[in-house]
């Protein structure tokens, strides 16, 4: 009946990210074939450039699926790149540096989660404030100066290295996507996240501690943003307060473009991955096509609007 019709519409919407991906990829492949868009080097380059957005996107998918948002991820990458670099500067080892980098994200996520659930303040406002606080901290503790990382082992492990010709940063990305996919699709947590976002009251009536679930999604988002910061640090061989500036918007755009509902209750990790690749391909293609930064911004902005338009369309 009418339901069937709606369902078909929805399937189309659900898969639109893949259609868009193929169209954009084909478009640039043909248009920029002579300029080397399709070369292995360039494709790997795209993966490298989108790695952090994808990793943060995995966490953001959890957050948005519960009907919340996390605007602090970009700032977290900056702070965690700095805390990691500081530990490395003191020669305390890669393991401690990693713990501190991830812990930085975890702590900010914890603050986000506790403030939203305990004081019932909308996540938009809490994380907007936290975005400022965290980047401010990053500037403050470094006096706006980058902290170089001379530990090449660290830099190779998290940013610059290759395994069999594949950039290590890409391997990390795939690892996170797979773990995220399994947790999201095959564990109770994933189901509880969608239940909380779909209908929080009904989830409560089913014995789900929805506050705890919301808090956990902020922890996941925080840790993954912390990890993205570690990757930034390794790739740039420094911790720096400017890292991840504006990333939160690219991440949210990638997640929504991927098919996760801004209203909560629907989410897809693979969609986020593809959404993030779409953003990367557009950026990369436009650079190769010779557009300057201002023009790239215009196109990217339009893509974000497009993504949100799809995401906020009621089903």
């Amino acid at each position: 009946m009418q339901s069937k019709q709606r369902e078909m519409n929805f399937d189309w919407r659900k898969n639109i990210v893949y259609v868009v991906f193929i169209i954009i990829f084909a478009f640039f492949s043909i248009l920029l074939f002579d300029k080397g868009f399709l070369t292995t080097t360039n494709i790997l380059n795209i993966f490298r450039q989108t790695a952090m957005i994808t990793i943060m996107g995995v966490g953001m998918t959890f957050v948005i699926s519960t009907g919340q948002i996390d605007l602090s991820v970009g700032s977290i990458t900056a702070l965690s790149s700095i805390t990691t670099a500081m530990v490395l500067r003191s020669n305390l080892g890669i393991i401690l540096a990693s713990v501190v980098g991830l812990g930085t994200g975890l702590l900010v996520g914890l603050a986000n989660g506790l403030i939203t659930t305990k004081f019932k303040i909308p996540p938009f406002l809490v994380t907007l404030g936290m975005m400022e606080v965290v980047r401010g901290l990053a500037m403050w503790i470094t006096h706006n100066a980058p902290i170089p990382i001379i530990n090449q082992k660290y830099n190779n492990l998290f940013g610059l290295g290759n395994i069999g010709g594949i950039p290590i940063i890409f391997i990390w990305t795939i690892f996170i996507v797979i773990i995220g996919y399994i947790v999201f699709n095959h564990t109770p947590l994933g189901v509880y996240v969608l239940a909380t976002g779909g209908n929080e009251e009904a989830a409560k009536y089913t014995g789900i501690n929805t506050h705890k679930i919301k808090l956990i999604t902020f922890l996941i988002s925080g840790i993954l943003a912390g990890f993205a910061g570690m990757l930034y640090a390794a790739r740039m061989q420094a911790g720096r307060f400017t890292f991840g500036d504006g990333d939160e918007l690219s991440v949210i755009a990638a997640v929504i473009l991927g098919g996760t509902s801004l209203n909560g209750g629907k989410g897809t990790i693979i969609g986020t991955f593809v959404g993030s690749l779409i953003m990367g391909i557009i950026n990369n293609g436009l650079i190769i096509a010779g557009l300057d930064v201002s023009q790239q911004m215009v196109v990217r902005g339009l893509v974000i609007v497009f993504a949100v338009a799809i995401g906020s369309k009621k089903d």
Partner: protein
Amino acid sequence: MKEEILRMVNITKSFNQVTVLENVDFDMRKGEVHALVGENGAGKSTLIKILAGVYQPDSGKIFINNEEVKLRNPIEAKHRGISIIYQEFSLIPTLSISYNIFLGKEPKNRFGIIDRGKMVLEAKKVLEKIGLNLKPESVVGDLSTGNMQQVEIAKAILENSKILIMDEPTSALTEAETEKLFNIINLLKEKGTSIIYITHRMKEIFQICDRITVLRDGKKVLTSEIKDTSLQDIIRNMTGRNKKIEVLREGTKALNKQSKTPLLEVKNLSSSNNFSSVNFNLFPGEVLGITGLLGSGKTELAQTIFGIEKKDFGEIIIKGDIAKIKSPKDAMNYGIGLIPENRRTQGLILNQSIKTNAVLPSLKRFCNFFIIREKEVMNTVKGIIRQLKIKSKSLNEEVRFLSGGNQQKVVIGKWLIYDPDILIMDEPTIGVDVGAKSEIIEIIKKMAEEGKGVIVISSELNELLAVSDRIIVMSRGKMVKELQREEIENEEELQRAIQTA
């Protein structure tokens, strides 16, 4: 015979090759109340939506005042004097009554500024017309459900509606509010407004309606004067089978049930403003009915036992031990399940599949090291779909696409899978068709036979009488009567017990 105001002829409508309405005729006379009934999925709402201009019929004609009309959209239907009062009201809670009923057609002065004085005055007139003394300045969000509905009606009157469609208008009303609604309906009748009255409550049809049309599987099976028909007649036409509403539970053997240790003892339980000093026991194999008018505290009592509302004092004792219940999860760990009053907002996650909804409370049981055993989940859910005869395309179908009865079966199914010792059901058959209703009653009986304790909270008295071993009557937050099933002769007697409480 009164003059005919509406005639729908040979209306046919399909969605994706599924015929939802087939050659349906329907007519309305001026100033009549016409009941439109049928099980869920019979085509009532499609017919109504065609009349309201939401859907276009594939074939068939619509005449208003003997003139053929095309209702291409809701605005055209409104212009022809057709208004719907939906179950979920379309009011804006933050605005006042007068703003709401004038929404989109506010009287303005010559500078284009809203003429508030005039608006309030006109609103007052309309409200008085249907015998309401509400203040036009009151904010709608502060009103009771009954008053909100009255504001909706006032809005329709202001739009000069000739045909008013009421979709389950009493489902959220108290007895007194229902009474008031019936007064308004009678007033509207006198003024020549025709009303299409959709309901699942047979009793109301005989109270307020002049004629009845029954739909079954997209076809019209009966149109009759109310005085020429009977309850049995209507039910037979609706279900297509001669199904009696069962009034008595087979030999209630509550006596020996009560000799065992109670599954649940509630002692002196109180929750601020909601109820106080509630005491009762629930024994294994027993169905305990709780009834009372709206505001009696029966729903809050269930929510407190289930850990949603906080208790102020008193004890909940499970199988002889004092239970500390602070959240639904605690209650579930003590083996309590709750089927909430509102299945759409509390019972189900509408945009999730049958499968997800059905296993949600029991998910942990289906896990190996956090990974869900998908196959086992599917088999379990398939089993419950078969057992409860849930009509669906697949177990991955989103529950919002199911009919009310099937949605409620999913809610029941999720608790059957969880398998609690004590199941509390709050209005388990509300908005459910007659067929599903008797199936749900059978499920309740079966649970009791298996030695579980079931609490059924309901305002449908025949349903309570059909399943309960004992019935508690609540009023204004107090337990006022506890009756053994055998003590109650019939529905009227129970109704009297509630009314005189």
